[in-house]
């Protein structure tokens, strides 16, 4: 059942051994490695190490195991996200965390390493919620396997989740298993007029109303929401919503949500200013200092700000609300600014210890996450 | 659970019972969740699972000190754990066996002896208890504060219904209740009168024996049990339908007569019969048509089910239904399954824990500002009344409230 559904576009090619050899020689030479998939998120995080020692994953591709009734897919890390999603689509399934695809070369390994999830995330979980297992090359140059293809697995430490958003600094992901979800029978999107405050108030009110929400966004006086489910569920939701407000159906909704997911929306196209991602507790109100140009997602848990305010001010304001600011894109406008928030010293120490133990020769994407990590 | 009891113990009846109980326990720890003392102290030794382990040690011949005895003493015997236990461990029976062995092998300090003897020699004896209470009331200013608060105000006796019906039931008057709150049984007689039942109090009967049994004076307890059986027997032969109890602690004890006297050749049979006849007043009323008892002055009530009723006798939801049917509104009570800390003589022997539990219980009962708190056991009633100005009464009084 498993392999006949693999589209011919996915080449079945296992180069684990070559990759391992390159890692081993890098360990032997203590030569830092730049791990590269589709180069779609090169801008994200700290600058990659300057080296010609590049570990290319894009030729390590293929579906290792996919049985739709098990709701799991196991795939080689260099497989393109685009191809994987097409395969799932054919089987009426999806990746519920809707990761961004900044270019078509984007690989699933890179998706995991960067750990960025898309519009559906606040409603159906992130990559770390969906990952079940990884096979990787570790700092000893060994191929090791953690987790697996079953939903519940607590044997040993959770190395699979640790790889999510580690930016390739803990090892090279070779293969990974992800939980997939049934594709919603139907999706429709609504649009309505709302100030930012009204938009947040709506989102708050919907949180406990059991609506089949799968995405929300607010931009320039408009609130967008997507509903996913069966005909019956969506009809019931529309009825409930129409009692609370007036709305219109959003045309071209697939295109709209893709533009949010892949940052092709007009908001993201201002290359002239740095782009900040603010991660906030769900109930965060309108933040007075950022009333200018911003775009909200996930009921206000993720807010994008594109402005020239000083790093210090942005981090301080966000910190007061219990959140974090990440300089997502625009390092060139703010040279020297660390993209990721500074960690408490004790926490930083733990992270550094972990990096030292798992990558003793410091060869995996050194400095990509923090200066010394 | 694996056991390895001493041969000398294994051959006794107690030993065999203990062994079979211990082997049922799978050590899951569910019991600790609903144990009042574990909740407060957080020590495995202060929860049923730990106490079972301690008892196991004793019966397996390990050397024990007063520490083990203290842990067992701190158990309220509320039997909440038995309700929780999915494996069906009869904890209270095991505890009794364990306590007996430890009492034999350890020596209590003089002060503890004195208090326990004092309790044993007064509480079960109506006249002595009445005397001390009267003295206490007159000289209350001279008593230590802790004890002063324990002396309740005097309560009028209330009228006993004189009506004669063909249906007759006996009531246990007991020891402490007729002195502290003689109005409960007289009220019960008037309630039953309305249902066409005459309630008969046999003056000769006395304490049910629970106080002695729980303070490890088995022999004394058995004497009291037999005394009561003898006192009731002629009426039972004459056709009394039931032995009604209005103090759930005593009710539980009488329901256990069968077990306590099972090896007594002379009384075993009678005890078994007495135990089947024994019913809490709620069980009696629930079987009758009580529509005539509905109130015309509905109140908001907080109901405290005594442990001996809900966990011991496993009578749950019955009082609630009767009161709601009769027009009362019952507040939802947090942690209703927990003990109020009265637990017989516990309030005197373990004042600290008892008072902490009492305070917690009152806070939960008073949260929604009830007009009255009702319960079904004299011990709980006085223990709770010490802590509040809201009247605390036996719930049967509400059935006369028109």
């Amino acid at each position, binding site marked *: 059942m498993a392999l006949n559904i693999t589209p011919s576009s996915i080449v079945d090619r296992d180069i684990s051994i070559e990759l391992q050899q390159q890692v081993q020689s890098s360990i032997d030479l203590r030569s830092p490695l730049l791990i590269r998939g589709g180069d779609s998120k090169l801008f994200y995080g700290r600058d990659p190490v300057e080296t010609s020692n590049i570990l290319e994953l894009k030729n390590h591709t293929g579906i290792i195991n996919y049985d739709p009734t098990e709701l799991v897919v196991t795939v080689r890390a260099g497989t393109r996200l685009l191809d994987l999603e097409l395969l799932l689509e054919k089987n009426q399934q999806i990746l519920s965390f809707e990761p961004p695809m900044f270019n078509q070369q984007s690989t699933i390994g890179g998706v995991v390493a960067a750990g960025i999830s898309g519009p559906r995330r606040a409603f159906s979980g992130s990559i770390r919620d969906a990952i079940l297992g990884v096979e990787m090359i570790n700092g000893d140059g060994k191929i090791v396997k953690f987790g697996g293809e079953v939903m519940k697995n607590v044997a040993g*430490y959770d190395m699979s989740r640790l790889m999510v958003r580690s930016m390739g600094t803990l090892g090279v992901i070779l293969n990974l298993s992800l939980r997939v979800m049934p594709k919603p029978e139907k999706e429709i999107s609504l649009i309505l007029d709302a100030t930012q405050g009204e938009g947040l108030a709506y989102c708050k009110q919907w949180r406990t109303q*059991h609506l089949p929400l799968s995405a929300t966004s607010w931009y320039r006086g408009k609130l967008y929401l997507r509903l996913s489910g069966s005909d019956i569920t969506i009809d019931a939701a529309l009825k409930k919503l129409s009692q609370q407000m007036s709305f219109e159906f959003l045309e071209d909704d697939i295109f709209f949500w893709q533009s949010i997911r892949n940052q092709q929306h007009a908001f993201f196209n201002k290359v002239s200013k740095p782009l900040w991602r603010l991660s906030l507790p769900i109930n965060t109100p309108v933040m007075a200092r950022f009333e200018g140009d911003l775009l909200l997602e996930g009921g206000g848990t993720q807010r994008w700000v594109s402005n020239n305010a000083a790093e210090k001010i942005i981090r301080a304001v966000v910190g007061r609300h219990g959140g974090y600011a990440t300089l997502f894109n625009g390092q060139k406008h703010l040279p020297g600014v660390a993209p990721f928030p500074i960690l408490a010293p004790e926490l930083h120490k733990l992270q550094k210890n972990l990096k030292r133990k798992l990558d003793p020769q410091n060869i995996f994407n050194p400095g990509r996450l923090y200066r010394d990590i | 659970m*694996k056991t390895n009891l001493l041969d000398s113990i294994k051959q006794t009846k107690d030993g065999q019972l203990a062994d079979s109980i211990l082997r049922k326990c799978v050590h899951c720890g569910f019991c600790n969740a609903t144990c009042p003392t574990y909740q407060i102290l957080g020590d495995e030794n202060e929860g049923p699972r730990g106490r079972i382990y301690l008892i196991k040690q004793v019966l397996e011949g390990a050397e024990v000190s007063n520490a083990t005895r203290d842990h067992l003493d701190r158990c309220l015997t509320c039997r909440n754990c038995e309700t929780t236990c999915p494996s069906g461990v009869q904890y209270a029976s095991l505890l009794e066996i364990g306590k007996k062995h430890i009492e034999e092998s350890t020596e209590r300090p003089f002060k503890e002896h004195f208090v326990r003897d004092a309790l044993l020699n007064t509480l079960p004896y109506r006249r002595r208890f009445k005397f001390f209470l009267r003295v206490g009331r007159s000289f209350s200013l001279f008593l230590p504060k802790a004890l002063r608060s324990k002396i309740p105000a005097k309560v009028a006796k209330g009228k006993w219904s004189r009506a004669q019906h063909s249906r007759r039931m006996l009531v246990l008057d007991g020891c402490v209740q007729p002195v502290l709150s003689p109005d409960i049984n007289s009220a019960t007689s008037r309630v039953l009168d309305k249902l066409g039942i005459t309630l008969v109090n046999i003056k000769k009967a006395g304490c049910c024996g629970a106080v002695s049994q729980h303070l490890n004076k088995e022999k004394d307890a058995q004497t009291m049990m037999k005394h009561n059986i003898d006192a009731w027997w002629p009426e039972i032969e004459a056709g009394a339908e039931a032995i009604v109890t209005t103090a759930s602690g005593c009710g539980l004890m009488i329901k256990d007569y069968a077990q306590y006297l099972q090896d007594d050749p002379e009384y075993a049979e009678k005890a078994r019969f007495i135990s089947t006849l024994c019913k809490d007043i709620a069980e009696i009323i629930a079987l009758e048509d009580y529509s005539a008892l509905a109130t015309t002055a509905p109140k908001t009530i907080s109901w405290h089910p005594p442990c001996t009723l809900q966990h011991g006798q496993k009578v749950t939801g019955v009082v609630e239904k009767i009161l709601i049917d009769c027009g009362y509104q019952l507040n939802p009570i947090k942690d209703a399954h927990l003990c109020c800390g009265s637990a017989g003589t516990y309030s005197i022997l373990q004042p600290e824990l008892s008072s902490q539990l009492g305070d917690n219980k009152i806070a939960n009962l008073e949260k929604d500002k009830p007009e009255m708190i009702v319960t079904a056991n004299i011990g709980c009633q006085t223990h709770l009344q010490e802590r509040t100005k809201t009247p605390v009464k036996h719930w049967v009084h509400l059935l006369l409230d028109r």
Partner: protein
Amino acid sequence: MNSEPESRNNILLALREILPEKYLLTAKEDLKPYECDGMPAYQRIPIAVALPSTIEEVQKIIRACESQRIPVVARGAGTGLSGGALPHEGGIILGLSRFNTIIDIDHENMTMRVQPGVRNLAISEAAAPYGLYYAPDPSSQIACTIGGNVAENAGGVHCLKYGLTVHNILEVKIITVEGDLVTLGSMTLDTPGYDLLALMTGSEGMLGIIVEVVVKLLPRPLATNVLMASFDAVEDAANAVAIVISKGIIPAGLEMMDNLAIKAAEDFANAGYPVDAEAILLCELDGAEEHLAEQVNIVMVALGEANASNVVMANSEQEKAQLWAGRKAAFPAVGRISPDYYCMDGTIPRKRIAEVLVEIKALSEKYGLRVANVFHAGDGNLHPLILFDAGIDGELEKAEHFGGDILELCVKMGGTITGEHGVGFEKLDQMCVQFNPDELTHFHNIKHAFDPYELLNPGKVIPTLHRCAEVGAMHVHNGELPHADIPRF
């Protein structure tokens, strides 16, 4: 590690400075009840039991132990089923039962901040007035504490749809082995740096002491329904699971019990289980009313396709609770039909359930021990309970071997040796089967990053390579000697 009297006296001296007398247990008879957790087959007496109630006390205790190199085993409610809280003979038990305060219910953010000794069920009870609840519900939820849930990454009957502990917590505060207070995770969906919250979850007390947890709360489902399907053949019930999932339905819970388990549970809970059925499936569905009806219809059809001999639906809240009550109490209820049981926890791909059950049955005959099967069928998490009598010489060992065979079978089927109970002490040998020496070394490296002297719950979860070499000598697969590169003794 030092367990001589002198080091014992030194650590006791230090601990006496930190804790009041009644919260530092040192008398032998007081220590005895701490010799095991919910897995009484393994027993050890610790040097002392410390029962602190403040973070500062925990920090002082940890620092004292660290400086004297005394092992520390954290313990919550002691309900674990893998010996995770089994004491270390040269170490102390750090009991967190007194950390039982709910610090803050933030219903607007749908979170609750609690101390680690708060019971799982108490969280949902406290959230109920706001129409919220905490999703993971292990069967021991009445007693088990949230700190232990995090340490074990506890699951429950609803994790098919709502996830495990790791999916339902936002933040934990830990005390490191050096005594530092560190916050992992945050109140937001993204926390910078490595996901140490995920790493800590399920780490079984090996990486730090959990002293505070923030859990996510969910709105209570609008409506739920519980279906109970009876089957004349266990295999049919197993296949029904895959059929239901293949219809695109993710039930809130999908549980299976075989005949022996049905009988034991029925005896305790009077749930109305069919005691003559070979197996039952309990299927809980939830959602908005309309959606629920739709799902019920689909599942009914699926169960029919799967040869269910009967399907009943709970008609009231009480009936639903009743149907679940039997399942939740199924483990200890087995205590009614057998003096001892040994609970396994392997997970396998759903499609192999029937196959695995057949093999377990064959093993049961081989060992001459009965097995009651109770498990989370929806996520392939098996809980075979091997019934035995520890009072009979050799039965415990027989049960252990039997259990080991089952777990190895799970690994062979593409599964894992533990889905939710943890490795603890119990499954150390099976870790050698699931992981090769390189992988175990990788785990040891993680451990050493947090705990270089191996003081936190030492000797659990990750076996030494030597141990595996010895185990390997016993378990030879396909004629190959595993771990041939390790020196053998």
